[in-house]
């Protein structure tokens, strides 16, 4: 779905705390952190559970289902986005709880409604980078 030969947006890069997430995306899996002590899911990939303060943590595969928490349409021009402004951006509330920054594809912006069910789709935008976008559930 992305025009890779013209992909100009900033490519995210894994670091020590987030490589499980980005590696998962390349496998077309949505990975989140989960606390082994209290079971709470979290998305900021931090070593300590904010609920129980345990550092006993695992990465686990999320369902990829969620709902549209909110969305905006950016009209300001930023480097890498010049040719496609205005563009849509979104925050999706995952079934497991955490919210993730993304966008919604495969439907007209006018169809978007907060709380509509969505599902993750995986977009290989570069050889080493897959972005997790969302589309209408069941589509």
């Amino acid at each position: 779905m992305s025009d890779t030969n013209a992909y100009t947006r900033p490519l995210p890069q894994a670091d020590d705390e987030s490589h499980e997430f980005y590696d998962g995306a390349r496998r077309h899996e949505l990975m989140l952190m989960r606390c082994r002590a209290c079971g709470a899911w979290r998305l900021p990939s931090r070593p300590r559970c904010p609920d129980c303060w345990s550092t006993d943590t695992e990465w686990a595969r999320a369902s990829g289902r969620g709902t549209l928490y909110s969305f905006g349409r950016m009209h300001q021009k930023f480097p890498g986005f010049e040719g496609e402004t205005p563009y849509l951006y979104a925050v999706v509330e995952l079934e497991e709880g955490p919210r993730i920054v993304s966008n919604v594809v495969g439907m007209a912006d006018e169809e978007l409604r907060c709380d509509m069910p969505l599902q993750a789709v995986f977009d290989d935008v570069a050889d080493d980078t897959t972005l997790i976008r969302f589309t209408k559930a069941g589509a």
Partner: protein
Amino acid sequence: MDGRELKGRAAITGLGISEMGRVYGHDAQHFAAEAVQRAVADAGLRKEDIDGLLVNPGISPLGGMGGVGLQNYLGLTNLRLLSSMNVGGATANIMVQYAAMSVIHGLANHVVCVFADAPLREGHGGGAAYAGAGRTTRPAGLGALYPAFGVFGVNALYALATRRHMAMYGTTGDQLGAIAVAERQWAAFNPIAEHREPITLDDYRASRWVAEPLHLLDCCLVSNGGVAVIVSRAEEAPSLRQPPAYVWGMGQGHPGDMRRKGWDVETQTGAPMAKEKAFAMAGIGVTDIDVVQAYDCYTYTVLVTLEDYGFCAKGEGGPFVADGRLGPGGSLPTNTGGGQLSAYYMWGMTPLSEGVIQARGQGAGRQVAKHDVVLVTGNGGVLDHHSTIVLSPHPA
């Protein structure tokens, strides 16, 4: 312990506002120093009387250690209290709170609280400094998802919060526009407001999109300048030069954001927590408020703040603001200097400075006749941090 014993025991005795707005060629220290100098003169104090300094830097450098270096820039050699503080736009009220407690309990007598910033450069748009912060071509970590999807700057994030409120409660753009129109009506009476020409709802609708659902006229200005206030023990206030603005109530609310289901700080802010403490201290209810100075980085911030203080029911902020209630002649005069939307963007010092002016009765053409109880709100982050100050010209 509800803090009632603190009511009216500290006062804002000095206010200094530097040259403000599109003023170039100076750094933030210059603006901070100007504001402090004017505040000290305003109070009728001498430099030697200042024994406390609290500094809130903006996004521009402000001396060493986050602004602590301002002490030596100003040659303040008698300080018993010194700190740099930053809770975003909630900081101004919070500085006043710590200053008030310090003077009440004898740690210091006259504490200067100052904010200054110089993000504007000649020939560059107001938003450039804010939206551009931290951008790289190959950002790393999970935070890199924001630039990857083009989520730059606070405009993008407040657009999400505004959209969420619209979806939950049916809030409309025109209702937000009514806030922009009302603040501009007030700004016409404020000689230092950057924008004083009137606007209509049609102007609001026609103003360009920044990040939908936010128009340009939903967004605050960006300003160069500085504002300082002096907090003194109440007993000392009547002998100083200006009518005291007594601190009746103080509170903070930081509910946290776990960024997951159940945390809706975008539409349910920390204001109720801050209000509960501040109003209990002041011994007031929401119907006692005569004038509101609500933090207004965006029109929506005003709307959600009024809801969260209980001026109207949750979710009814849209209809509440739509009928001109906030403007001149309205039943709830709000942001009477034009606020950050029309006058100047000095973070929490914008509502605080106008709160002091109204409590003193020095608003001239924009002075609200009944100004016994003035509410000042601060907001930091993306509705993450809230602070409350209640001011009054009366000691009790």
